[in-house]
């Protein structure tokens, strides 16, 4: 083996050794994996369609925003009250005392004939049916109640007492009751209680100012031979207790009562946290009835006043032709059905326009109800009959707004996460693009304030600087209706200071400055299909450093 064989090998090795000795910095050095991300993102963030109806329903938590047949929106604030059948008519307990058998002078026993002979006595008598007013009831269908028959005999004879009446029908049959007086000691006494649920009591109104019920009695005395003394008698007392009806027919009487006394209809829609003035073009009050009693009513609105935010009020006068107003009722062919009716108090029959300002807080009112306002007539009432009365304050969104400012605050804590190393310095540039398609009849100005609550709600900065961004109203026609949306694209480049302040803030105050079209000088109508379409995009450029030990 010669040395020459190794020469190429030695040559190669020497090159390697020389190279290795002079190029080992990278091999020995540590790796610094710090990352600086200096990119940017431009893209859409959020979009939406703010429907006017949805907005109002959100703003008005009571949720009484509706639209009429034309789509015009209105706020409706109502209070309901119900007049039920028992409020209108109650049946008092009845006692019909019948001294059936009594003699003025004693009758010797032999006058009565042979012992064991039967002597009959008949009696038919009408008894006055007690009333609570001037009602003239023809018939009562008894839902529940008790008829009591109390019999006492002090004569020293036995006998058979038969009671009947074609004014009382039980199970469709005339009332008929046979009572055997089997004790000739003169000490007989008995009470019979009958459940008369489902029975019918027919009353006689043939005599003016009188309502009566007719009862028949037949007494068959069986002669014991004893005398009948003047102090002795056979007494029968008929009573009706706890009568409740399933139906009553006839004139139920004159009912006249104030069922709502100085109630208040408060308008939440007009009590938001806003400044400025809203002038309503056509505020209204409606009275709606739903009546399934066979009784006509008149409703009178009384004590009507508009109350304002400052505590003052003004009375509202309604024309006498519109107040009280009569409402319909079902007739005898409509038993069990209900009749709906309504009337409106507006600027045609009242001076309600006096209430048409943004200061309006509520309407005060009382409700008087008069039954049978045109005098006696045939009525009917079922046990579940009722008269529902709804008084609504209506605010059609036909109005003008001037210098109205709405505001709300939201949490905004982009830069206050103690666990985040993200700082405003990492944001090199920020631009927001706001694109709107305004289909509402309002000029909408927007401003966003960055707030630091730890510094006594200090306004650190605003998004749009000293100016607010204005989104002009949609194009409206002569009737105040939007016929075309107005599009606008606004780009807001945030300054270094704005970015710092935005990230230092912990809340944002969102303010909307609203005026109806043409500077709030004309009335415009708000329809349910109005909307404000918006789209927010942003371009943000970051210079964000991620240290290698982060996340450990």
């Amino acid at each position, binding site marked *: 083996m010669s040395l020459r*064989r190794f020469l190429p*090998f030695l040559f190669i090795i020497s090159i390697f050794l020389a190279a290795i000795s002079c190029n080992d*910095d990278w091999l020995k050095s540590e790796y610094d994996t710090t990352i600086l991300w200096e990119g940017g993102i431009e893209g*859409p963030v*959020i979009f939406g369609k703010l429907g006017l109806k949805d907005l109002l329903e959100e703003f008005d938590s009571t949720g009484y925003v509706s639209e009429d047949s034309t789509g015009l929106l209105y706020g409706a604030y109502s209070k309901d009250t119900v007049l039920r059948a028992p409020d209108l008519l109650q049946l008092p307990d009845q006692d019909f005392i019948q001294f059936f058998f009594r003699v003025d002078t004693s009758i010797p026993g032999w006058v009565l004939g042979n012992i064991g002979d039967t002597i009959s006595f008949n009696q038919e008598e009408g008894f006055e049916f007690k009333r609570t007013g001037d009602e003239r009831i023809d018939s009562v269908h008894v839902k529940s109640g008790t008829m009591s028959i109390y019999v006492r005999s002090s004569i020293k004879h036995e006998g058979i007492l038969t009671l009947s009446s074609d004014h009382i029908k039980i199970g469709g049959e005339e009332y008929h009751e046979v009572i055997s007086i089997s004790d000739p000691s003169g000490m007989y006494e008995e009470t019979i209680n009958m459940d008369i649920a489902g029975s019918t009591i027919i009353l006689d109104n043939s005599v003016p100012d009188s309502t009566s019920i007719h009862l028949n009695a037949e007494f068959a005395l069986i002669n014991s031979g004893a005398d009948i003394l003047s102090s002795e008698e056979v007494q029968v007392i008929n009573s009706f207790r706890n009568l409740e009806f399933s139906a009553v027919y006839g004139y139920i009487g004159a009912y006249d009562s104030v069922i709502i006394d100085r109630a208040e209809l408060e308008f939440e829609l007009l009590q938001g946290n806003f400044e400025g003035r809203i002038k309503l073009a056509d505020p209204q009050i409606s009275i709606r009835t739903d009546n399934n009693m066979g009784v006509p009513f008149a409703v009178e609105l009384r004590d009507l006043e508009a109350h304002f935010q400052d505590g003052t009020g003004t009375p509202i006068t309604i024309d006498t032709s519109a107040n009280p107003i009569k409402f319909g009722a079902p007739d005898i062919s409509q038993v069990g059905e209900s009749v709906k009716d309504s009337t409106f108090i507006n600027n045609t029959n009242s001076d309600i326009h006096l209430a048409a300002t943004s200061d309006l807080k509520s309407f005060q009112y009382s409700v008087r109800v008069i039954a049978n306002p045109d005098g006696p007539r045939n009525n009917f009432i079922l046990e579940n009959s009722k008269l529902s009365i709804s008084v609504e304050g209506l605010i059609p969104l036909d109005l003008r707004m001037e210098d109205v400012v709405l505001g709300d605050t939201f949490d905004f804590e982009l830069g206050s996460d103690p666990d985040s190393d993200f700082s405003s310095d990492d944001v090199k540039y920020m631009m927001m693009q706001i694109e709107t398609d305004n289909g509402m009849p309002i000029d909408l100005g927007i401003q966003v304030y960055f707030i630091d609550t730890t510094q006594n709600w200090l306004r650190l900065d605003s998004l749009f600087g000293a100016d607010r961004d204005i989104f002009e109203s949609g194009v409206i026609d002569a009737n105040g209706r939007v016929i075309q949306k107005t599009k606008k694209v606004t780009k807001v480049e945030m300054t270094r200071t704005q970015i710092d302040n935005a990230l230092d803030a912990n809340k944002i105050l969102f303010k909307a400055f609203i005026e109806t079209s043409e500077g709030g000088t004309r009335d415009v109508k708000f329809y349910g299909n109005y909307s404000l379409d918006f789209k927010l995009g942003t371009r943000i450029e970051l210079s964000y450093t991620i240290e290698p030990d982060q996340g450990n």
Partner: protein
Amino acid sequence: MPDKTLFKYTLVLCLTALLAFPEASAQFGNTYYHMFGVPQANQLNPAFQPQCDGYFGLPFVGPIRFEVESNGLQYGDIFQYNSSLKKNISFMHPEGNKQNFMNALEPVNTVRAELASNIISIGWRREQLFFTVDFTERMIESTSFPKDFAEFLVYGNLNQNNFNFSDLSQNLMYFHEFAVGASYNFDDEMQFGIRAKLLLGGASSTTRTSDINLKTSIDEWSVKSNVKVDATIPFLEDLPVDQDGYLDVDSLANTDFNLLFGFPTSIPELLSPSSLSTIGGIKNPGFAIDFGFNYLPIEKLNISASVIDLGFIRWKEYVYNFEQDLDYTFDGLEFKLEDDWSPGDGLLDSLQNDLQVKVTEEKFTTTLSAKVYLGVAYDLTERVRFGGVFRTRIYNYQFYNQFTVSANVMPISMFSMSLSYSYYGNSYMNLGLGLSLRLGPLNVYFISDQAPSSYFWPSEFSSLNFRLGVNIVWGCRALPKAMKDRPLID
């Protein structure tokens, strides 16, 4: 044809091929193509016959090879030594150079890796024939991403609005390779070899189509994509799909597959005939062929050529074809005046509705990445050889070329060494090194086309490979068997 003319033609052929595809190239282990003392050189050219009469490779290291390569990026594009910090920093470091990284990117960037380990590697000579039997576990993975993808990650959409993410892909193939080869020596002037390979597929994931486009603006982001992926996922049965054939993501999230890396976790299940068949890849058969020649036109000059890995695998078991066709526009989170407004949920629902993945179970075929080698070597002495190898790898209808020159020495019969220089694509700084030691019947070699240069010029290296082999050899000659040198070699 005169020998010198043939030599010239060969050189011209190599250079023409090299220059024809300068933009598409990649690195592979070429250093040991002409190296002394490496029995498994026949894996690059089945015509090669080793110096020894036989060898037996130790399981798993007989040999084991690992390669990773990038077609565009170099180490220096990602990491650089910063002398002021005295640290290596990435291109994303505040002191790093992002633009340099972006400039270095190709339109489509591919990182490919392959790991292969021979469980069995046996070769023996019988007269003029040399037989080989190999059983190899191979795993090939490649990930591609377009330049726009990196642009989006590094800069967002700061500089451009439209991004073409097409060719974003990931491919993986794991298979067993059973190879039987033979080389015949024609009168020491010519050797011809062929090797047949039975391929048994284990698992795969192949991106067939990747057509993804993203358009961004401050108003909307829209993405249109069509992605098709064929996959073989062993032991994954009953992938939850709805009645329309779309992947049921909710059910998938709740599915307990009871698998660990795709394999059953219980031993009885694992050792069942069905499982063993799956593990062995019996139902995913494939075939490949290697062939080549080695010719000695004139004394001391070798010309050789080979084609290897020309083959395919037919995947038939546990196959799934995923297709996702998306046309999605993001306008922002939709604001709704609802108390329980949850924009994230709405976005997720929307994405889930649009990001539907159609699943079918059609059989599919994948091809291996075939390589073509052209080699020329000149034996200066019996122990010193200079060689040149041109190699092209064919992948996805593209050619990835490499040209390597090497100096090979064997100062003593128990030791040989090779130093190589490779050129591929725009990478010129590639020094390779091969060392082979034979101590009695034990042969150990380590070869890398890149290790030295990656150390000398770390900023330039874009790939790395090594091959480590441990063999038991017998019947070895003191000197390399020089063809047409009959007086010296028996």
